[in-house]
């Protein structure tokens, strides 16, 4: 099995998503970005917008009101200030 990106989306009140996924798109202050496995490590502040999580054929979308992203080659941690799953 191919290794996947370890992604977790945490809001102050609770953890909203944790698991292995293929790709995550997030809105950074300096522009939207997508993260795959092996992304170069970086940290950024996020602006309000949509976070899209893709894993195989399934897609999940969360609305966030700003937050913070911590990306390493293997994992992506998104600290959202306020997040809800978009219907």
């Amino acid at each position: 099995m191919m290794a996947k990106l370890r992604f977790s989306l945490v809001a102050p009140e609770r953890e909203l998503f944790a698991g292995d996924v293929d790709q995550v798109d997030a809105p950074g202050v300096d522009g939207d970005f997508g993260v795959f496995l092996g992304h170069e490590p970086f940290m950024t502040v996020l602006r309000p917008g949509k976070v899209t999580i893709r894993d195989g054929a399934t897609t999940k979308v969360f609305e966030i009101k700003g937050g913070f992203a911590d990306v390493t080659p293997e994992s992506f941690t998104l600290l959202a200030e306020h997040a809800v799953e978009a219907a």
Partner: protein
Amino acid sequence: MASLKEMRNRIGSVKSTQKITKALQMVAAAKGRRAQDAAQAARPYAVRMASVIANLAKSVTGPGAPVLLAGTGRDQKHLLVVAAADSGLAGAISSSVVRAARERIYELKAAGKEVRIICVGRKTVAPLRRLFPDAIVATFDMSQEKVLTLSSAEPIAARILQAFENGEADVVTLFFSHFKNIVSQVPTSQQLIPAVVNEAAGLGAAPDLKGGVYSYEPDEAAILETLLPQNLRVQILSALLENKAGFYASQMTAMDNATRNAGDLITSLTKQYNRSRQAQITKELIEIISGAEAL
């Protein structure tokens, strides 16, 4: 010796008290479970936040570092945020936090420091106001906050930041009761400003960067500028959540004891009641018999 009627009333009133304490115990048990879940659910965010800040703090040091992280370099003015419950009937949980804060205040005053206090929760206000009437700069009542979210912590954090920016505080410490488990809540102090960078509190080992170096958008300092106030809010929120979980746990224990005490009291009162009832009957019988014998 109380009359039989008085004793019956007494037993009745202890019984209704017992019903109330029993009900309160069950309510506390139910709410406590929810509060514990909430406290647990908030932990990942706080832990990640701490590890990210620990990571960032390594690259931002020296004179350019944000004051929230590095402090003002002085240690003269202390701001104590004392957080406890809004209501009583929960044993010593609030008073033990207040006691811990009080001892710290005496220590600081003895060392010639200036002390200011922010009270969170109604139960902290009265005892601290009595002891240090001039030191209290703000009080917060959390009893209206049914569900604690980040916005519940926001006004407190804002007041702390304001105090810090106005130069009213060099060091900010938070007092709350750490929820260890259901039977043990420990009054704890935690320094908020300057932020304590504790890598042990983070995720342990630094992430494997595969030879890469972190890049930052916009830059480290700007990220910290947004992250540190957020961290303050998060720390306050998790303290409030732990307080709440601890409060219900403590209330449950206190009410369990009260229910048991009421039960003991009822047993002994009933015994006493029966004894005097029998004594009375015996006395009446003796009167009738000796009356009949006299004829």
